């Protein structure tokens, strides 16, 4: 079976700094992956490369069987490769309902329509409402995004990602800045997402990683150190040395 998302020999350098070196990963459908590694390991860079926000110096990216290496970011999203951002990248003056409706309109190709009112597209709004409901955001869905609590804005990041009907969802530190007790709830919501969606998330909290990921990729210095089940990762001496080891002295 072809992987949902895979890369071959992906390279990227900024000047003399190598941020991605020969990255080859392969994510099977429906699996929950965690991407871990120390700060500056190149985790966000890898997401930027895969989603087209950065252009690789070499290598290939495949979504299913299709080579998407040269596609613009929006065309990758239209094909089902969707990301969220570590730092909230939302529409401050739009309500949550409007934001998610916008993402659905873009997905369904009705956003260029200017001669019909938005109220003629009730199905898009209903769907947006359902997505917000599934993430427990309906109570505040008519308020401008900038008035939402920080944790709600993190959920809205995910809602915008879901609205694109992703086959692969890349979550860049979905719980960044969220208190530890709330981040469990956020990840429970992520764990509850459809099993058709392949998920890769970046996370620093090891409790969360071991609880919600079925497989883990460890990156160090722009390279993939290893990939395996949570147990394999936990027992691997190299990981203890470069990652856990460095923390626990």
């Amino acid at each position: 079976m072809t992987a949902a998302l895979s890369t071959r020999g992906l390279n990227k350098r900024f000047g003399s700094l190598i941020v991605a070196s020969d990255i080859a990963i392969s994510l099977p459908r429906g699996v929950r992956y965690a991407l871990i590694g120390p700060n500056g390991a190149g985790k966000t860079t890898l997401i930027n490369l895969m989603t087209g926000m950065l252009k690789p110096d070499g290598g290939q990216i495949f979504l299913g069987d299709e080579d998407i290496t040269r596609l613009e970011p929006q065309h990758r999203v239209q094909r089902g490769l969707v990301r969220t951002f570590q730092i909230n990248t939302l529409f401050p003056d739009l309500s949550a309902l409007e934001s998610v409706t916008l993402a659905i309109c873009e997905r369904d190709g009705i956003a260029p329509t200017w001669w019909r009112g938005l109220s003629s597209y009730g199905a898009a709004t209903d769907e947006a409402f359902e997505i917000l409901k599934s993430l427990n955001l309906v109570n505040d869905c008519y308020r401008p995004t900038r008035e939402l609590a920080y944790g709600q804005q993190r959920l809205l990041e995910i809602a915008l990602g879901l609205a694109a009907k992703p086959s692969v969802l890349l979550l860049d530190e979905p719980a960044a800045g969220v208190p530890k007790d709330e981040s469990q709830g956020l990840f429970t919501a992520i764990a509850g997402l459809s099993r058709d969606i392949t998920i890769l998330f970046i996370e620093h909290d090891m409790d969360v990683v071991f609880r919600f990921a079925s497989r883990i990729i460890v990156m160090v210095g722009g390279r993939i150190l290893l990939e395996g089940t949570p147990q394999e990762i936990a027992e691997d001496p190299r990981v203890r040395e470069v990652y856990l080891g460095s923390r626990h002295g």
Partner: protein
Amino acid sequence: MIATTGTALTPHAYLQARSRWGVIEIAFWLATLLPFFLFPNYLSLASQIAITALFALSLDLILGYAGIVSLGHAAFFGLGAYAAGIFSKFVWGEPLSGLVVAAVVAGVVGYATSFIIARFRHLTLIMITLGLGFLVHELANSAHFITGGADGLQGVRIWPIFNYFRFDLYGYTAYSYSLVVLFLTFLVARRLINSPFGLALRGIRENPNRMPAIGASSRAHIRKIYTISATIAGIAGGLLAQTTETVSLGSIDFQRSADVVVMLVLGGVGKLYGGLLGAIIFMVARDQFSGLNPQFWYFPIGVLLVAVVMFLPGGILGGLSRLLAGIRGRRP
């Protein structure tokens, strides 16, 4: 108040409430008929205000809804004016077809330049619009043989509308004509901003970086709204040429580009009515103050502009709506 009703409101009702005509809106449009009764001697001015308001509306669509600051929008106004004027001089003077020609010429040039506009942002974009404005102005200036250059385009004769309503000395027909065109175009603009496309434009304004991540082709959106805005600016210019039966370089110069930005900022950006209100204030102030002192009429406009941007970030309209919300909020 939408925000406080919470879950009681269904998504459909919420959307419908957002696009429903308010009492103030209806009152505003009824008030546009008042000059016929209250100021019959000022109908020519009223016509100029309606035309300027239409021009400001066209700028609001790109500035207020897509976040594209243009300092060269008079290029399209002037193109429309010259197109309508030249058309009436050399083809025929039927006004409606002349207006269509003005719209098409400005729209085609708008579409052609939109490919440059959609590629840039911030200061670069402002400088490009400024440069394009200068470019078109110099073209009109140097093409003396067809535009009349600095002497202005003479010999424009406009037939009666529908071969019946003659353009009279008092501006009765001119104001009626300008007002009808303004209102119809406003209806189109209002529909546009309440459409899925209008939502996408607000998305671009709010966060252009997020747009590709939800699968949006922002550049295609920008090209489209820029073309539409140029078309509307061209219609406004065409109206001015037809109602005044002359076109001067003043219809295409930097001053006009700058004035329309000032009007929009005064009235309130991104509110559709801001440009209309700004045009009324600006034009009436110019008329009144230049009567007092023809050389320094810009002084009070300058004071007003500084005061508004310092104390009313949402423009005069923004200030009024906050005031209104405050009054409503205090009532039980």
